């Protein structure tokens, strides 16, 4: 139909008339109604009462302080708490999106129970009595050890879970995250005998040699690490820090380094030993430190000098000999220098052996327990919860062989056990702050393994992968709705206790998971009931916080200027506490966000070195490199390059995405969108290879491809990225998301399905660094 001039003019008139009535341009003489046409979202009314509540972010283990803004009872914004020493007002995207986690459409609204093959809503009474009955039954039949709990929480909720299992009679309190307590923490445990983990004093370092991925994007505390970086770059008088990043791909962290050293995946430890070799050859080691604080170094020295010549190291790692020599000199002659080996957020890319090698490198230049080096933060002086009694059943249960120990990669240990390594079945699994199915890749193999457990319970607030196959879901509050303690430390090694308090009432019919555990324990009866008398988690927090009050140390959070005051006072033996009675302490801590002790005593040798020798023990590393002690030929897996299985030519490098690790956040749309921004990717899984490899495979940027390993396969988008070296395929990894949720997690966990379960805390060759893949068009 042709448009005639008359029609056109008429249409214009009508349009003009319509526009005259456009809601935004006219005002009718009547009640002035809001003109917003957006029916789905209405801001709170004007002039509504406003308040701010101080709390601690619970989106990741970093423990930043937050202030939540509430208008008319609605959570409308989250900002950082400038008084909190970890973040001093800064935040990361996870914390900032906290309100979305509370109002998320995929939150579980009440307890669910599987019946007729589906999860159906049930009452708390029904749910808890079901669980209690099962637990009682298992205990009665002497099978209490067949109950396992995967625990991704920290602090007192972890203690409550430990008490529950201890009194109940199970040795199976497992870590809830696949990359929990590996590398630096394990290395310090082996070499120093301490459990607390590493604090990298980056603010005071002049040279940072970072191994592995994402220290600036993830690490122990994303905001803490970023803050220290900012200070070390431009925020101090002692000059700008030099950063060298050793990593298989050009990550965001590597992009911010002064130099990026590409390295073959999984060979960080080899390079560390190669650097150590050069430091020793050129006599640049800190001899005084090693004599005073090192034990068994001669053995290690002999091995390193013999087996880690730059030529061999260069061949293994792909780093040129010239660079190895130069880096070694830079590292050893710029004091203070520190090597960061904490790959905590990575899926075991580094083995513990690598972690020990990096820690030893630090020791060789005297960067352990010294300013600018690796510190051992003291714990928060909390009171331990009162001891609890036991009965015969409990004792027998606890004596059973443990499923993996509390320090292992829990989900992997569980999978290996269920796949046949175990000596008894797992009859009941509790996932607390943990999504094992997603963390194991969410694929068929993991599903088959977990289906062997007849009864699975999840405390998740969202329908994550594990909750979807669970038999019982007991949804926890969102982190903004609950009381919790958040013990952590700053990069300068100062212990911090952040307090998390509810900023608004729970939105749905959820309950605090630790309180639920206690109630179930009371239902089981006997010593379990005695071990868990508390109905209110705040009670538990107050009980243990009395220890801080009694210690007379530290101070409630205050402005940055107060830090120097507290430090000076304490160093001279005075108290600098800004609280009187315990009530004052508690009121002040909840109002300001928490307590800390800004003093690190470098002379506390006995606290920091708890090995039998009282020194840094190089034995475990030396033994690992030379297990038969033959001193004849290298036997460590690190020294030999594993051969690529035929048909799988590309070495796989899995790297963690910072923001994919939010604890019970659910997929957050703003976070989903920003993942992969540096590559202009988002919302779906991708695999990165270099230009030359892409050309050789005949694939172009954006092609849909299939990535296959001997363990599994995934589909992904191909990204041709100049920041990936030839022969390497890099993929992001994070907990997966099930279809049907409002937003999928950007990185379905399938990438983790490409590597097998990692075995045990000291497993080395089984680390993901030795996975191989092939890529072809899908």
């Amino acid at each position, binding site marked *: 139909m042709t448009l005639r001039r008359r029609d056109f003019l008429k249409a214009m008139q009508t349009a003009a008339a319509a526009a005259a009535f456009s809601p935004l341009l006219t005002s009718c003489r009547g009640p*002035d109604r*809001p003109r917003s046409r957006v029916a789905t979202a209405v801001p709170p009314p004007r*002039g509504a009462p406003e308040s701010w509540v101080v709390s601690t972010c619970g989106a990741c283990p970093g423990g930043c302080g937050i202030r939540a803004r509430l208008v008319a009872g609605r959570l409308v914004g989250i900002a950082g708490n400038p008084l909190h020493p970890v973040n001093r007002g800064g935040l990361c995207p996870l914390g900032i999106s906290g309100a979305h986690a509370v109002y998320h459409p995929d939150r579980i609204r009440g307890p669910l129970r599987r019946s007729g093959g589906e999860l159906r809503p049930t009452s708390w009474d029904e749910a808890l009595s079901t669980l209690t009955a099962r637990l009682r039954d298992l205990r009665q039949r002497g099978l209490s050890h067949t109950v396992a709990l995967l625990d991704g929480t920290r602090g007192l909720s972890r203690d409550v879970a430990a008490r529950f299992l201890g009194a109940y009679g199970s040795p199976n309190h497992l870590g809830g995250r696949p990359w929990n307590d590996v590398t630096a923490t394990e290395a310090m445990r082996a070499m120093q005998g301490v459990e607390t983990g590493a604090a990298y004093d980056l603010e005071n370092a002049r040279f940072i040699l970072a191994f592995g991925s994402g220290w600036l994007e993830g690490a122990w505390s994303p905001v803490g690490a970023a803050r220290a970086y900012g200070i070390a770059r431009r925020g101090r008088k002692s000059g700008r820090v030099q950063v060298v990043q050793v990593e298989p791909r050009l990550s965001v962290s590597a992009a911010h380094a002064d130099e990026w050293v590409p390295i073959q995946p999984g060979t960080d430890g080899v390079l560390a030993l190669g650097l150590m070799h050069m430091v020793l050859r050129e006599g640049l080691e800190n001899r005084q430190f090693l004599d005073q604080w090192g034990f068994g170094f001669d053995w290690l020295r002999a091995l390193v000098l013999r087996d880690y010549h730059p030529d061999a190291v260069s061949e293994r790692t792909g780093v040129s000999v010239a660079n190895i020599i130069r880096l070694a000199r830079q590292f050893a002659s710029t004091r203070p220098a520190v090597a960061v080996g904490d790959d905590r957020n990575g899926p075991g890319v580094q083995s513990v052996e690598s972690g020990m090698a990096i820690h030893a490198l630090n020791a060789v230049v005297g960067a352990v327990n010294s300013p600018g080096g690796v510190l051992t933060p003291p714990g928060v002086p909390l009171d331990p919860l009162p001891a609890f009694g036991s009965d015969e059943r409990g004792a027998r249960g606890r004596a059973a062989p443990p499923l993996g120990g509390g320090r292992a990669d829990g989900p992997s240990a569980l999978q290996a056990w269920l796949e046949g390594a175990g000596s008894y079945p797992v009859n009941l699994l509790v996932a607390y702050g943990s999504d094992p199915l997603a963390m194991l890749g969410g694929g068929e193999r993991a599903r088959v393994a977990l289906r062997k457990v007849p009864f699975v319970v999840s405390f998740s607030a969202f329908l994550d992968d594990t909750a979807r196959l669970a038999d019982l879901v007991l949804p926890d509050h969102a982190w903004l709705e609950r009381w919790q303690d958040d013990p952590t430390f700053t990069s300068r090694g100062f212990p911090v206790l952040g307090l998390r308090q509810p900023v608004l009432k729970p939105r749905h019919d959820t309950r605090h998971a630790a309180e639920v555990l206690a109630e179930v324990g009371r239902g089981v009866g006997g010593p379990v009931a005695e071990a868990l008398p508390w109905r209110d988690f705040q009670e538990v927090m107050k009980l243990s916080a009395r220890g801080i009050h009694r210690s007379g140390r530290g101070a409630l959070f205050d402005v940055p200027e107060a830090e120097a005051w507290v430090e000076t006072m304490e160093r001279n033996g005075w108290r600098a506490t800004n609280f009187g009675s315990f009530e004052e302490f508690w009121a002040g801590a909840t109002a300001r966000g928490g307590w800390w002790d800004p003093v690190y005593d470098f002379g506390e040798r006995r606290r920091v070195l708890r090995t039998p020798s009282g020194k840094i023990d190089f034995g475990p590393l030396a033994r690992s490199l030379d297990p038969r002690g033959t001193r004849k030929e290298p036997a460590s897996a690190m020294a030999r390059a594993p051969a690529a299985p035929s048909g799988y030519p590309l070495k796989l490098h899995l790297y963690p995405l910072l923001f994919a690790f939010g604890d019970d956040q659910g997929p957050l749309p703003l976070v989903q969108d920003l993942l992969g921004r540096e590559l202009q990717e988002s919302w779906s899984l991708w695999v990165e290879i270099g230009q030359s490899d892409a050309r050789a495979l005949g694939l172009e940027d954006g092609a849909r491809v299939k990535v296959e390993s001997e363990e599994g396969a995934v589909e992904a988008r191909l990204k041709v990225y100049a920041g990936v070296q030839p022969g390497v395929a890099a993929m992001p990894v994070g907990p997966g998301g099930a279809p049907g949720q409002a937003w999928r997690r950007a990185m379905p966990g399938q990438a983790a399905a490409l590597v097998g379960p990692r075995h045990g805390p000291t497993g080395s060759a089984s680390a993901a660094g030795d996975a191989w893949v092939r890529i072809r068009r899908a």
Partner: protein
Amino acid sequence: MSPRPTARRAAANRRHPFAPSAAARSAAESRGPRARALLLAAFAAACTAEARQPIAYNHRVHVKDLEIGCETCHATSRNGEVAGIPTLSTCADCHQQANGTSSEEKKVVEAVAAGRDITWARLYELPSHVFFTHRRHVTVAAIACERCHGDMGSQTRPPPRQLVALSMDRCLECHRERGASQDCDACHR
């Protein structure tokens, strides 16, 4: 033909936010002229929509006779963003028992006794893209309430619509007069 029916009909043909949907309109049209007339009446009513208050509050008695200032009931008109509509407790100060014989007052006393908040209909509601605070205009600019709200103090019944029709033109006129900012972003957000 007299102008009014034409204007009404022309108005009925145009899309208006308060108008019934096209579907309802066509349904009415198919039922004949009577239905159409009713619909037009409804439309007219919607266009000149009136606010109906639950209680016929008499401003004059309170403001002129009892000399209660605006701020006593509209508590945040001096220091807040909005003027505020009185809460039940404000009314309860005087109306625990009936002070007169008015049937409207009886409704208030009942509400006070039951602790039931009175849901007043709003007459003034600015769109979300406007930034306006009473504080700035009442306290800083010292503008009398009557300037924008009209002589509410003399009203014996709640007016069905704003006494002074607020529009952006009116605001700008006053801003020009008094030398206040006329930048778009002073008031738009």
